[in-house]
C-alpha cells in the first residue's frame, strides 16, 4: 500500500471531447452512486435479520438498529470521543505531512543522504507501531502527546516514500532543459522537481490521512486518556470491558465515517492543487 503512486493517463484531445465526457460522467455517477447504495441496503437488512433469526443477544451481535439506538443514547459520550480522535489524528497527519515532505526534499537533495538514510526509514516502517508505542508512552507520558506521535509515526512513511519517488521521477529531457540554462540545484528543486512530484505527494497524503486515524485509535488503546478526555479508541476499550457491544459498534462506525470524510477532504484538496495540469485529476473535472 505504501508504494501506491499516481497513475498518469495521457489523454489527448481533452478540449474537444469535453462534452462527450460530461455525458459519460453523468452516466458513471448514476452507476457509482446507486450501486454502493443498493449493496449497503442489502448488507444492512441481512445484518438486521441475522440476530433475529438466530436469536443472538445484542452483546454478541447487535442489530443496526441497536447500534443506532446506542449512538443516540450515549451521544453525550460519543461526540466528545469523536472530537478528541479527530483532533489527534488531524494534528498527527499535519505533522507527518510537513515532516515527511521536508525530509523527502532533504533526502532528494543529496544522493549520499538518500542512499545512507532511506534504508533506515524502511526498517523503521517495518517495526510495528504497537511494539514501540509503550516506549513512546514512557518518553512522552500517556495521553494526548503520545497519541499524536503514534499517529504521526504511522502516517509519516507513505508521505516520504511517495514524495521521494516523485522527486526522483523527473523527465530526463526536462532535467536537460534545466541544466542547459545552468539552473542551480535549488532552482531545479523548487521549479522542477517539487512541482513534478506533486501528484505523487498528493497520493502519499491520501494514504497517510487514513493511516493517521488508525494511528490515533491504536494510540488511544495503549496511551489511554492521561487525565483528559478519552477518544474513540479509549471508548472502545471501555465498551468492550463493559460488554456494551452496540456502543462499541457505534464507536467503530463513527471512526470509519470520519476516515471516509477525512479521505474525501484530502482528495478534494489534492484535486484543487493539481487542477491546472495533472491528467488524473482532470478526469472528474466538470
Amino acid at each position, binding site marked *: 500500500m505504501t508504494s501506491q503512486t499516481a497513475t498518469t493517463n495521457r489523454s489527448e484531445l*481533452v*478540449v474537444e471531447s469535453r462534452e462527450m465526457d460530461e455525458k459519460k460522467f453523468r452516466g458513471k455517477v448514476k452507476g457509482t452512486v446507486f450501486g454502493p447504495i443498493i449493496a449497503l441496503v442489502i448488507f444492512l437488512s441481512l445484518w438486521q435479520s441475522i440476530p433475529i433469526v438466530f436469536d443472538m443477544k445484542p452483546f454478541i451481535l447487535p442489530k443496526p438498529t441497536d447500534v443506532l439506538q446506542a449512538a443516540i443514547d450515549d451521544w453525550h459520550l460519543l461526540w466528545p470521543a469523536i472530537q478528541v480522535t479527530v483532533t489527534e489524528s488531524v494534528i498527527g497527519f499535519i505533522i507527518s505531512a510537513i515532516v515527511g515532505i521536508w525530509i523527502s526534499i532533504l533526502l532528494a537533495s543529496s544522493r549520499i543522504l538518500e542512499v545512507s538514510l532511506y534504508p533506515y526509514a524502511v526498517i523503521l516502517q517495518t517495526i510495528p507501531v504497537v511494539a514501540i508505542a509503550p516506549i513512546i508512552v514512557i518518553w512522552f507520558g500517556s495521553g494526548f502527546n503520545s497519541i499524536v506521535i503514534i499517529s504521526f509515526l504511522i502516517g509519516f512513511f507513505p508521505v516520504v516514500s511517495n514524495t521521494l519517488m516523485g522527486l526522483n521521477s523527473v523527465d530526463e529531457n526536462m532535467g*536537460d532543459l534545466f*541544466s542547459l540554462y545552468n539552473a542551480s540545484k535549488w532552482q531545479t528543486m523548487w*521549479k522542477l522537481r517539487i512541482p513534478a512530484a506533486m501528484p505523487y505527494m498528493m497520493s502519499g497524503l491520501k494514504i497517510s490521512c487514513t493511516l493517521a486515524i488508525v494511528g490515533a485509535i491504536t494510540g488511544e488503546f495503549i496511551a489511554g486518556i492521561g487525565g483528559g478526555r478519552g477518544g474513540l479508541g479509549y471508548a472502545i476499550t471501555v465498551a468492550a470491558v463493559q460488554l456494551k457491544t452496540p456502543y462499541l459498534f457505534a464507536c467503530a462506525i463513527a471512526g470509519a465515517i470520519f476516515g471516509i470524510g477525512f479521505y474525501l477532504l484530502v482528495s478534494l484538496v489534492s484535486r484543487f492543487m493539481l487542477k491546472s495540469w495533472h491528467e488524473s485529476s482532470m478526469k472528474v473535472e466538470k
Partner: protein
Amino acid sequence: MGAMQKEVVSFKGVDKIYNTGTVALSQLDLSIHEGEFISFLGPSGCGKSTALRMVAGLGEATKGKVEVFGQNPKELIRNSNDIAYVFQDSNLLPWRTVLDNVVLPLELRGSNKNTRKEIAMRVLEMVGLKDYLKSYPRQLSGGMKMRVSIARALAAKPKLLLMDEPFAALDEMTRQSLQMDLLDIWKKERTTILFVTHNVYEAVYLSSQIAVMSARPGRLSSLIDVDLPYPRDRVTSTFTEYVDLASQSLEYSLNRKELG
C-alpha cells in the same frame, strides 16, 4: 555561403562511445558557420542526436573536441544564453502557463521581471500564440505546444539554436506551417540553426546545408550545399533534384554499411 563567415560550431575528430560499447559517432569532422541552417540527416542510430547533445554541453566526446564559438560547450552554457535547444517533444512544464513556460530560461538566469514579460510577448507573437498566454500546455494541440517550445528557446536570444527532430511527431499540415514559420524566424533573428531530421524533404526545404550521416558507427558521409533561394517551392525540378541527391547520398551511406 562564403568561407569568410565566423565559425560557430566545430567538430574535430569526434568519437563518441557509450559505456555499453556502442559507437555512436566516429571521426566526425565538421565546421558550421554563422548564419547557416544546417540539417543533420540520417537514419536512426547514426548519432545525429548525440552530436547535437554534445554541442549543447549535455554530453561529452570520448575522443576529439567539440567547440562552440571557440569554447567548450559546457563552459559556454554556464556563462551565457548563446545556446538554446528544442526537444523532440515540446518538453513544456505542465504546471506552468504558456507565458510562464516561455519566461523560464530568463527566470533561471535571474533576469528582471518586466523585461521577461516584454521578451515573452515578442517571441510569442513571432510564433503566433500571443493570445494564449494564460493557457496550460494540456489545452494546446501538438503543433501549438511545439510553437511554445520554440518561443521558449528564442526567449533567451540564442546565437545558436539546436533542434532535435522537433516536427517529427506532427501531422503533415502542421509540420509545413511550422517549417515556414521557422524559416521566417531564422531570417528575422539571424541565428545559426542546427536541425536534426530523418526526413529528406524537410532537410531540403529548410536547410542551407545538409550533413548526411550514416549509421553504426555514425559518421558524416557527405555535405550538401542547398543552393536554392528562399522561400522554396516543393514542386520545382531543382527542388526534386536536391531531394534525389540527398536520398542517393543517404542510400549510398546505407549500402556502404551493408557491404562492409
